[in-house]
């Protein structure tokens, strides 16, 4: 990756200068049209009536409720997913059992299911029309059109992130360090906290980062299960849709701007992790 390792381009093993410049131009131009311009538009539209209008729209009670709901959902989904990812990676890499490949495929399944179909599945299982959902509603625990449904939808779409990141790293590290600690008399939890976790902490952080970014931004699955009740079950992305459809452009893009800044922060942290701890991440080798 570093700029010094590449030999001087020889004409036989690289393209002519004109072609190189044309290809770079195409790549940069394409990204300007598809990535940089939309980024700029978010902030330009949010600030179309100045900073005060943008900030005032974010201070609206419904907007604050949406921000609070998104943070709540993320704060519930992220640790649950991290715990699941850690448990699944431990189970899959520290034991040998039949059906391991099937289990990994099932964990990866949510990546190949449309978020809208995921939402539909949750509605069919927990909605008031189903046996289970009807019973839950009758007992005062509605899932769909309430917080638990939004959390479930978020868990579904972010399900594989942590496990996928940890499994290759833990396979590569092997079991010998943990076996040594056990032989020396350490308890299972002590092995986890003093041997395993220090070895996988950057990979864990990387997975949690991806999971958090997706959790805050999920739209399709949440749109189906949330019921879009303003001030109650409308997350930030749902609120963006409602404001946009009401032609409240500044308010919609201000909230979009907040999510965009969080996305940029995620990218920054992700890039920093990839640069500093590339050797301890699965993602930088896998993809």
């Amino acid at each position, binding site marked *: 990756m570093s700029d010094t390792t590449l030999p001087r381009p020889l004409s036989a*093993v690289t393209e002519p200068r004109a072609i190189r410049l044309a290809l770079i131009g195409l*790549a940069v131009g394409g990204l300007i049209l*598809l990535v940089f*311009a939309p980024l700029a538009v*978010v902030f330009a539209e949010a600030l179309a009536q100045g900073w005060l209008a943008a900030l005032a729209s974010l201070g609206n009670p419904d907007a604050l409720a949406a921000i609070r709901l998104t943070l709540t959902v993320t704060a519930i989904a992220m640790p649950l997913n991290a715990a699941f990812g850690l448990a699944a990676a431990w189970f899959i890499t*520290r034991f040998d059992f039949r059906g391991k490949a099937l289990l990994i495929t099932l964990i990866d399944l949510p990546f190949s299911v449309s978020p*809208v179909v995921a939402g539909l599945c949750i509605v069919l299982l927990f909605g008031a029309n189903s046996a289970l959902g009807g019973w839950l509603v009758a007992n005062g625990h509605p899932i769909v059109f309430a917080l638990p449904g939004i959390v479930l939808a978020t868990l*579904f779409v972010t399900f594989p992130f942590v496990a996928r990141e940890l499994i290759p790293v833990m396979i590569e590290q092997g079991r010998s360090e943990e076996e040594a600690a056990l032989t020396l008399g350490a308890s299972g939890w002590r092995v986890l906290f003093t041997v395993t976790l220090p070895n996988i902490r950057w990979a864990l952080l990387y997975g949690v980062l991806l999971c958090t970014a997706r959790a805050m931004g999920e739209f399709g699955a949440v749109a189906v299960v949330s019921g879009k009740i303003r001030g109650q079950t409308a997350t930030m992305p749902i609120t963006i849709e409602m404001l946009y459809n009401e032609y409240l452009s500044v308010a919609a893009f201000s909230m979009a701007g907040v999510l965009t800044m969080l996305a940029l922060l995620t*990218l920054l942290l*992700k890039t920093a992790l990839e640069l500093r701890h590339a050797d301890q991440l699965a993602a930088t080798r896998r993809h």
Partner: protein
Amino acid sequence: MALIQRSPMPGLGLSMGITLTMLSIVVLAPIGALLVQGAGFGLAGLWDTINRPRVWAALSLSFRLSLLAAAFNLFFGILLAWVLVRYRFPGRRLIDAAVDLPFALPTAVAGIALTALYAPNGAFGSLAREIGWKIAYGQWGIFIALVFVGLPFVARTVQPVIEEIDREVEEASATLGASRAYTLRRVIWPMLMPAALTGFALSLARAVGEYGSVIFIAGNIPLKTEIAPLLIVIQLEEFNYNGATAIGLAMLTISFALLLAINLIQIWSRRRIGHV
């Protein structure tokens, strides 16, 4: 072989319990509910629900545009990966980071931003209107949104493969008298192809299911610019659970077929070149 081999490692019960419980509650039970609901009204019932012009139009639109977007991303992704690995130019790191933005940016944000840009009164949309090209609120708009969400897949699967290519292979090819174009076609492309196809399939699967970024820019006119996921949402809003289930099952089946294809590509390429 026993179902689970004995191991001195602690935490078997706990880790297996958490894994299987969460997998069941979050993923398997909801998908099972869809399958049970679908089985409830049988193949004939499902077929009657799907076999309507509006549903066919939505499914074929979703697939046609997803294929086109994935094909565009195949070329553009290889181009991006090649440029990022092989060439040095100012701002390369920024471009490299920008490729990941579609993964990080919430789809609703991408949707309204692309619409604002490519709408007839937007910055790019107004330029396009000058030459009579309508982008947003039509199929071109859907295409652009799908290209956006699938942008990183091919670039990110191909990039590490290009990094690993031994330059001596290219030198050998050149020494033996091959032209640069011949080397690219007969030496480089066979090495890139498995990863590129995997990225293509991932990009396609993502595009088929995409909802958030498309609905703002699509126009959403039945039979013309209505995508399949939107049709599910519309059926649910009308409390037509059977209709939503039938379309959902059709999409799930297609996604599984794509997943199978991805796995077959990986198995095939592993046999061919030893790794992906």
